[in-house]
């Protein structure tokens, strides 16, 4: 069984401070929830940079090769057409479609890569059992959640969150 303990904070400044303290206290599986991204939070939580850029690069390169390859193959092998006496492999004319397919694949990689990294869609999340979290987190609440595999940790995490100034602290079970 796993649990999460959730505590509420007043505003972005308080949340940033709390995230810093939580990180310093050695908790690894915690998150800071806010209705909008807060500048400086990645450093406060000591997060590494997102790897999404590399996923998008792969997507873009795949699109580039696929788009150009499709055109080259169609023009020279699958259905060679002589247009105005131009060479069959007239790569200059393939630029626009190659560009479009590159952008298309890169955009899919960006969106679905982001879903993958964030483990979305998530059909069930125990955090929503916290009444105020489920009402406020997306709109105007600022929360820290700390997860643990051991139910027995609950009391100590509750005490910790209270000690760094959280209100409305309670644990939610799986």
């Amino acid at each position, binding site marked *: 069984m796993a649990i999460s303990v959730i505590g509420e904070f007043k505003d972005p400044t308080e949340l940033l401070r709390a995230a810093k303290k939580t990180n310093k206290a050695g908790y690894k599986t915690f998150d800071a929830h806010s209705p909008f991204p807060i500048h400086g939070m990645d450093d406060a939580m000591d997060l590494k940079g997102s790897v999404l850029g590399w996923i998008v690069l792969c997507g873009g390169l795949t699109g580039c090769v696929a788009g150009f390859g499709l055109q080259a193959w169609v023009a020279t092998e699958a259905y060679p057409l002589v247009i105005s006496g131009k060479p069959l492999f007239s790569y200059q004319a393939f630029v626009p479609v190659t560009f479009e397919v590159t952008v298309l694949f890169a955009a*899919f990689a960006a969106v679905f890569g982001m879903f993958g990294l964030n483990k979305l869609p*998530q059909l069930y999340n125990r955090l929503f059992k916290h009444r105020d979290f489920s009402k406020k987190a997306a709109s105007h609440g600022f929360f820290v959640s700390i997860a643990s595999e051991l139910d027995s940790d609950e009391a100590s995490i509750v005490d910790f969150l209270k000690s760094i100034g959280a209100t409305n602290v309670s644990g939610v079970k799986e």
Partner: protein
Amino acid sequence: MNRVIAEDPSKRTTLILGGHDFEGISDLVVKPIETKAPKWWHIALAFSFSLLMLLLSMIGFLIWEGVGVWGLNNPVSWGFAIVNFVFWVGIGHAGTLISAILFLFRQKWRTSVNRFAEAMTIFAVICALVFPGIHVGRVWVAYFMFPIPNQMSVWPNFRSPLLWDVFAVSTYFTVSLLFWYVGLIPDLAVLRDRAKTKIKKVVYGIFAMGWTGGNRAWQNYERAYLLLAALAAPLVLSVHSIVSFDFAVSQVPGWHTTIFPPYFVAGAIFSGFAMVVTLMILARQLFGMKDIMTMHHLECMNKIILATGTMVGYAYGMEFFTAWYSGNEYESFAFVNRAFGPYAWAYWIMISCNVLFPQLFWFKKIRTSIPAMFVISITVNIGMWFERFVITVTSLSRDFLPSSWGYYSPTWVDLCTFLGSFGLFFTLFLLFLKFLPMIAISEVKGVMPEAHAHDVKEGH
């Protein structure tokens, strides 16, 4: 509406008025979704929906009878369908420009406008996609446009600008839709958490995908948004450039010019922003969003309309210069014919609507006057429709040999189809206003002064 423009240029203009807190912003934006739709909304929807039915019956009639029901004739084989296609695609440029290019330039005022403009983009591109689809004549073989393996082993010609256009516009539609949806996810989570009925909770919940606003997710989310903006910025410039290749790569005098790509892009932004201003004026008034879509936002939009309108005016002048300077008599004739030939009436409507009226935005009084900007934004869209009409029809009707000249007039089917496309656009737009947040809630909160954390020293 008081003056909200910062008089002291060293200070940033306040973007959100009315002293709302974070919850207040959610309440304000979500209000039209949570309350019963006003009467005017039902009337407008009924009206738009009947125009949409008109569009569908015109398309049905076209497919049943054939393209002969349109006014196309032998020299003028591109008429209303192509004009309307370029017109709607052009309108569809504002959204992605606002969301991508202004995002990369860190123009924070965009947050109040972008959701709205992106929705408009998507609906305008849907309207645009209808026209080439039905223009092919035999719509049941429209799949020939895509590189799909088929039993005839026939593949599309990738050296044709018309095929580039298929890729450009469909990529643009897909990427705009992805961008719009990614932006919507945190706001859908707000709707999910506030939902009162089970159905709403489930539907908004599915689309919000379990978003909790955790910073670990925000980190990837922000990166995805940035990358999408970086991808969409060159995309938005490429789309209308490629649309202009449909004309510029041909040999027809008046079409075969290298100025077309930038000229089309500037015109697209011009018409798109004008459409956003028209709709914004109505929406902020009718839904009480004046604290978020302030006069400052409208003024910023009007400045861009002025800038792009001036670029379009420059392009009109430069086309004449190039035609004269080229010494090519077909080219020179094409332009003299535009201004003084049988379609001179259309040309002068275009010049007055696109070049003259927007210049009034040099005056701050006009730039910040709601009635003035409403009228000008509508004239811009009329003017931009006529621009495409002038380019498409005048050149075709007077090409190389006088023996093949002709005159094009639309039939009632052409006119009703065009009118009907507004029904499609407004039906989708009205549904959007009712069921989705018309303002990007989380982005607006992010640019409020309260959103910045002030703790930097502690812990370092």
